[in-house]
């Protein structure tokens, strides 16, 4: 990677650091006291035992540049506070640490002695890098695919429609009702359901599962061929204009189809990016109700719109909590409420909930093949968590986590099945 660090080249990054729209960034940039007690909260540090991976070091990469360019002390006495120039060496280190050694899981933030939002500062650092064009090409290509084709896997519309057509045929056969359907582009329905493009590409049965649940709940719903992608990888590159463009497409599609609710498929970062970040990208609150499919499933059960027979799922099941859904999105109890009604035997991982470890594939890691070795090294922690439960099925409401868990299953020979929440609910569904 050639590094051009003329003042004009680094100016966009410095503008991000000197953001004055509110006091969030300034507060976190000035708070870390370098106590280092965050070390054990980071999977990278735990797995590699390397001090470069202590979260406070990642914070310091960003705050040291802030001190150099935005504080009097850093300008006059840079060595006193280790205020660093944003030069080639700093940029190389930032790319390696902020993109290559952080899943943005936010576990360190939750456990920081002070309360520094470390994930937010890592994202700020990524934003600085992307503003200068230093996003890893592998990750950027995923964003480019989404922008150019409308979905991050570049699935052509014909292929998508064909897939849904045969899934619809299977649904009709399964529920024994020729009127059962997977509606497309229908105006005025209650729900616009989104998908992670991995579903039509690799995991079509999770679409079938959700379609069956919608059928059982007698839901008024539709998919869109124009914009169905729930993901927003520009959230991981922290490139605000691109993240805004992707978010705007989905927001506009909810308006075009005049739906009342937008239900986000099982995708942790997609849920976060649209439910929590998109309104801020767009500087506008949503006029439709935006919720995750996990919350919808819990709602169906609470309202008695679907009936489950937990005896249909007899194996011991455990749950992997996706970081962006749980720790960053507040969907903590709903999946447990659903699982307690969908499976006979359930066991929690240790730790779980807001303290759970990332699968290792978050933060765009699955898209950045150059860091595969590190990613699978930190995955040992998740593999051990799963092994200790003794479960034979791991449920997770996130397709990104599903991908990583399948790789973990394979590499560490866990011999478990990986399922999404909708899949295990569909397995227990009683059609009346």
């Amino acid at each position: 990677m050639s590094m051009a660090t003329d003042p004009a080249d680094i100016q966009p990054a410095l503008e991000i650091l000197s953001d004055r729209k509110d006091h969030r960034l300034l507060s976190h940039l000035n708070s870390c006291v370098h106590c280092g007690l965050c070390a054990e909260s980071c999977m990278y540090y735990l797995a590699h035992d390397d001090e470069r991976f202590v979260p406070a070091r990642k914070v310091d990469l960003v705050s040291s540049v802030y001190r150099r360019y935005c504080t009097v002390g850093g300008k006059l006495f840079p060595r006193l506070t280790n205020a660093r120039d944003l030069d080639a060496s700093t940029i190389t280190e930032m790319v390696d640490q902020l993109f290559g050694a952080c899943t943005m899981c936010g576990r360190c933030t939750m456990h920081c002695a002070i309360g520094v939002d470390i994930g937010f500062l890592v994202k700020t650092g990524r934003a600085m890098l992307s503003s200068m064009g230093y996003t890893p090409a592998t990750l950027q290509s995923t964003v480019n695919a989404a922008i150019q084709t409308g979905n991050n896997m570049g699935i052509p519309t014909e292929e998508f429609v064909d897939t849904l057509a045969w899934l619809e045929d299977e649904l009709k056969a399964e529920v024994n009702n020729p009127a059962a359907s997977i509606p497309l582009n229908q105006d005025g329905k209650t729900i616009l359901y989104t998908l992670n493009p991995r579903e039509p590409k690799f995991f079509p049965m999770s679409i079938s599962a959700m379609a069956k649940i919608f059928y059982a709940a007698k839901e008024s719903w539709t998919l869109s061929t124009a914009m169905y992608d729930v993901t927003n990888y520009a959230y991981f590159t922290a490139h605000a204009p691109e993240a805004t463009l992707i978010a705007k497409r989905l927001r506009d599609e909810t308006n075009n189809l005049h739906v009342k609710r937008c239900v986000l498929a099982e995708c942790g970062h997609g849920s976060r990016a649209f439910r929590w970040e998109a309104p801020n990208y767009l500087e506008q609150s949503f006029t439709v109700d935006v919720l995750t499919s996990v919350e919808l499933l819990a709602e169906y059960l609470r309202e008695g719109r679907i009936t489950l027979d937990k005896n249909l799922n007899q194996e011991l099941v455990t749950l992997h909590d996706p970081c962006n859904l749980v720790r960053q999105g507040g969907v903590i109890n709903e999946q447990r409420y659903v699982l307690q009604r969908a499976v006979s035997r359930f066991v929690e991982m240790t730790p779980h909930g807001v303290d759970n470890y990332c699968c290792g594939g978050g933060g765009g890691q699955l898209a950045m093949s150059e860091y595969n070795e590190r990613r699978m090294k930190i995955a040992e922690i998740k593999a051990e968590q799963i092994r200790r439960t003794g479960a034979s099925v791991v449920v997770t409401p996130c397709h990104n986590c599903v991908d990583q868990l399948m790789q973990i299953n394979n590499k560490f020979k866990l011999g478990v099945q990986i399922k999404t929440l909708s899949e295990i609910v569909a397995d227990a569904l009683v059609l009346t």
Partner: protein
Amino acid sequence: MTWYRYFVLAAFILCVMSLLYHVARLVRMGAPRDYSIRKGNVGSTVAYSFIGAMNPARKESAYLHLPTYTAGVIYHIGTFASLVLALFYFFSDVPGGTIRWILAGLLSVSVLCGIAIFIKRLLKKNIRSLSNADDYIANFLVTIFQLVSLSMLVTQSGEPLYFFVTGLLLFYAPVGKLKHALYFFMARYHLGLFYGWRGVWPLRSHN
């Protein structure tokens, strides 16, 4: 008024002006506006951020490092007590009776905590690698400040040295990490706001 009282007064004014500058800047910037639809109760979670979430049982950084965390808490209490004491010294006299000896006891432990934290920073590779000169200077100055405060309490002498050290600390405070005396509260406010807005905090039992 003696030279060292002028010295400490000048340092105090500079420190307060710097603090006011930071406060004014924060007030001018204002709290973030979030356009997403709020899920939780922000007021109670900001309070939780300062109280419940500070419970050592809630944070790995505390329960995995209980001796260091405890030392840090005592050290900060010692610093706060020493600052209050400095106001007393400047405007009136040394507190007497039982309070004097309770404070002396606290500061004795607190100074030891400060020294322990300094040594840990020097010896532990993890912490040393992320430390800069400011980290050591701040730790050193605060510990020396507590030590001279303790000395004043016990011996009731050594006023020039006491005020000189106090002045040095106040002059230095606006420069480096000691600013966290203000920004710590801001960080915790933002953490409570973030987790409260999204309904992550307060933690509820699973149903």
